[in-house]
């Protein structure tokens, strides 16, 4: 399988300016494949999946946690959550929340795709507590479907690459990645799925097959290894061959800006 991370940039970076969110959406969209069923969160995940659908994956199906199968989002009417009527536009089916989530457990979903507040070296995500859960500095909104999606399918996470977000161990495992690494995820009873790719404004990362530690697979144009490491709160591995990703193209940016003309999610 070819992968965005192995694509060598053959052209000089474009002059077009793009935002961090646009970069994340473009890079993540290139990880999608035609025919896949993608369980998408709101914001960058939805934009990325729709972008893939528009440009090269017409048979890709989006599922929303609110209970929607296969919507076509109306440009300029991006939903503020996965539960609004805007999520149902031109969809194939609406169904109860529990039943759409059960499609993950049944095994119909190829990719779960969400944003992240805090991630650790084994790809565990925290969206519940910053600090001690018994006496938190910040109480975050919680799992929503994150725990279910990451427990049951292969995951892509898109987030900003910052030291405070990339920590050795998350304060609280809301959505399980590879837990403590090695075979600990499977041993805990989570026999399928797992964190597959982490897309940031600096790089694209995957996880070592054995240790399950995060490692860099590709870097964005103009980014250095030192820069990535300096923005990460633990020691990152680097794949033997590091690809340089091609910067967002005009066609990709045009679709994103058509979908989100008010820059609700791409500012």
């Amino acid at each position, binding site marked *: 399988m070819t992968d965005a991370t192995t694509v060598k940039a053959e052209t000089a970076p474009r002059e077009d300016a793009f935002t961090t969110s646009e970069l994340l959406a473009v890079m993540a969209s290139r990880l999608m494949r035609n025919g896949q069923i993608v369980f998408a969160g*709101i*914001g960058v995940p939805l934009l990325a999946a729709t972008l893939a659908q528009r440009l090269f994956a017409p048979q890709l199906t989006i599922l929303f*946690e*609110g*209970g*929607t199968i296969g919507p076509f989002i109306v440009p300029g009417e991006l939903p*503020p*959550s996965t*539960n*609004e*009527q*805007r*999520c*149902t*536009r031109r969809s194939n089916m*609406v*169904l*109860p*929340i*529990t039943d759409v*989530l*059960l499609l*993950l*457990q049944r095994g119909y979903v190829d990719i779960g795709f969400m944003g992240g507040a805090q991630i650790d070296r084994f790809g565990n995500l925290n969206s*519940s507590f910053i600090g001690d*859960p018994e006496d*938190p*500095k*910040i*109480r*975050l*909104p*919680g*799992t*929503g*479907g*994150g*725990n*279910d999606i990451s*427990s*049951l399918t292969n995951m892509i996470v898109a987030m900003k690459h910052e030291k405070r977000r990339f920590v050795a161990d998350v304060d*609280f*495992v*809301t*959505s*399980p990645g590879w*837990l403590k690494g090695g075979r600990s*995820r499977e041993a*805990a*009873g*989570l*026999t399928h799925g797992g964190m597959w790719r982490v897309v940031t404004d600096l790089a694209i990362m995957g996880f070592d097959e054995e240790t399950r530690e995060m490692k860099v697979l590709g870097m964005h144009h103009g980014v250095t290894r030192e820069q990535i490491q300096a923005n990460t709160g633990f020691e990152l591995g680097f794949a033997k061959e590091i690809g340089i990703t091609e910067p967002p193209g005009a066609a990709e940016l045009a679709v994103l800006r058509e979908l989100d003309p008010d820059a*609700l999610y791409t500012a």
Partner: protein
Amino acid sequence: MSSDPLVKPYSALRRETLERDRGLREKVMSLEEATTLVHDGDHVAIGGCTVSRTPIAMVWALIRAGRRELVVSRSITSTEGDLFFASGASRHIVTSWFTQGIVWGVSKVMRHHTENKLARFEEWSHMSMGLRYRAGAMGIPFMPSRTMIGSDVGKRVADETRVMQCPFTGEELALLPALNPDVALIHVQRCDAFGNAQLDGLQFMDIDIAMAATRVILTTERVVTNDQIRRTPDRTRIPFFTVDAVVEAPFGCAPHECYGLYEPFFAHLDHYAAISARDPVKGPQAYLDEYYYGPKTWSDYLAKLGMEAVLDASRRGRSVYND
């Protein structure tokens, strides 16, 4: 035979159901009358999800009636969770996600109450909430699940879950205890006077909640005739005999949305988010004074939201039916 206190004993569930008047009878009443079906300390399940088909009119009426110590559960909790905490109606919310909506940032009111240990936000995964209601709807004490294991979300509620080795496969599964709420609050687009409810668009967890609960209060955009229901019985999702009260409450989700009729009142939600972010105590208090305690009637409340806002939300809401 011992029964787990986490789960309502089956004999009690059956007895309470038998005791309900399940005749084909009219049960239309006012918001105020319907509040008498909710008692202090009750477990109240809320239909809809985030800012969609939230039974705001009934939440409004319960807060005005001064209910206390409610245990509130919902798939995802939004503005109404803030207001339950801020009004003192509840100090315990069971849900998978709690904040008005992702575009407004983390709720400062939720943060204030949980970080200062004034109230409890009991976190379960979204599917777990759904499976718990479904177990309740099915009349079984638990549902097995392949999530909530391995994570801290599961560990944090470990006292309330069990792990079982599957007798068929030997796999380890999480067992999630059934939820049988004392009362379910559900808003629908239309129902008849008996409580046969038709809901358009996304169903969320509402049907399971209705089946699981001991009492159901339906608020509805409009009450239609039983004949009208009988013309399209395939669209009826909640049967009358689960329903105890029918309240006609037009725009009963405002400022949240009701599928096909109105979208969220975005400017109003922006305003609420701004004042509650400025001061997580005085902000929601001022909001409650102005919108919850001040208006004399539900119509007064809608008038305060403003005709322009109502029309704008309606215009956007009805657009789902445009090609």
